[in-house]
């Protein structure tokens, strides 16, 4: 995206009063005022453009009834002795609005699949060959909220997929920047940065007629060491081209059904591997 520069007139016609002011050394003040006005105009233009790009992305994504993509995510954690470490994982997401989604996540310590068919949410631990099911009725939006608020298992990048994405992303935003563009996976994407009180986030949006999110980075600036969570999206497919559009859960042979309580007690089924020990030090 090309950053729009404010248009300034090539020539200025000075009146008698202005000539007099200049003679009295007001030149610097005038130029400073003009520069400030120019910068303010540029900043406002950048904000408006950034919000429009974000609106365009969220509207486009929400309008896709079927979509699928692959992702790579990095979750940074900060150790008690201030070492920043990154947990890397990859996976795929396939969804069919309003109420079906299937997501996988693989890392060095966990290989899980989540399936939601509009009435039941299933979490399958492939390595342990166990699965947990909870009834959740409604849309993907209901699922995302319930997992986040009730079960404290927020779905990564869900911010970008919901119909209310624009409102969620812009609520309580205190600063907006349009930073031009960057290239991600060979695709040129518009680069935007937003600030909230507790977090900053950046988003790269693909240029062209498919403005999908290329990368999304959240910085927890209120957490010691300002760790980041990032997710990079690839293989974006929509409509009939979306893959993995089967949302029926069939337990693998020998899979054991477990309760939510059992799931919580299992090692290596959460966000952190078991050799990462949580402390209440902040």
């Amino acid at each position, binding site marked *: 995206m090309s950053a729009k520069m404010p248009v300034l007139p090539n020539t200025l016609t000075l009146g008698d009063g202005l000539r007099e002011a200049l003679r009295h050394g007001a030149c610097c003040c005038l130029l400073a005022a003009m520069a400030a006005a120019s910068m303010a105009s540029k900043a406002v233009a950048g904000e408006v453009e950034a919000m429009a790009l974000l609106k365009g992305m969220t509207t486009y994504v929400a309008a896709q009834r079927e979509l699928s993509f692959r992702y790579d995510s990095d*979750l*940074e*954690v*900060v*150790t*008690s*002795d201030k*070492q920043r*470490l990154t947990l890397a994982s990859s996976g795929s997401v396939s969804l069919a609005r309003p109420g079906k989604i299937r997501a996988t996540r693989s890392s060095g310590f966990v290989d899980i699949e989540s399936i939601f068919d509009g009435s039941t949410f299933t979490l399958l631990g492939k390595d342990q060959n166990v699965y947990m099911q909870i009834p959740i009725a409604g849309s993907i939006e209901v699922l995302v909220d319930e997992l*986040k*608020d009730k079960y*404290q*298992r*927020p*779905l*990564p*990048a*869900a*911010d970008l997929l919901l119909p209310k994405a624009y409102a*969620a*992303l812009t*609520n*309580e935003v205190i600063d907006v920047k349009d930073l031009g563009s960057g290239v991600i996976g060979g695709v040129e994407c518009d680069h935007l940065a937003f600030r*909230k*009180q*507790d*977090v900053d*986030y950046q988003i790269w949006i693909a240029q062209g007629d498919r403005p999908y999110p290329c990368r999304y980075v*959240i910085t*927890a600036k*209120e*957490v*010691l060491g300002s*760790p*980041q*969570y990032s997710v990079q999206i690839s293989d974006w497919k929509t409509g009939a081209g979306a893959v993995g559009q089967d949302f029926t859960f069939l337990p693998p042979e020998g899979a054991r059904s477990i309760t939510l309580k059992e799931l919580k007690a299992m090692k290596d089924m*959460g*966000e*952190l*591997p078991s*050799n*990462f*020990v*949580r*402390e*209440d*030090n*902040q």
Partner: protein
Amino acid sequence: MTIMKKHATALILALGLVGTALTPSWSSAVINALVTPAQARVGRPLTPVSVAGVGRRTVRRCAVGIYDC
């Protein structure tokens, strides 16, 4: 970690398992089982994976968007 993996590999070699029915993936699994990864002690809260609902001081209070907070 690397030294421990070398030890594990040496152990496998010593046991004469290489070249038998031990497949590359199985040998990797055996090495992983023998090697204890380093432990990291991490603080709370974890990094939020969502900004939805994040407002002033919500991250520190584990209010939103944070896994198993």
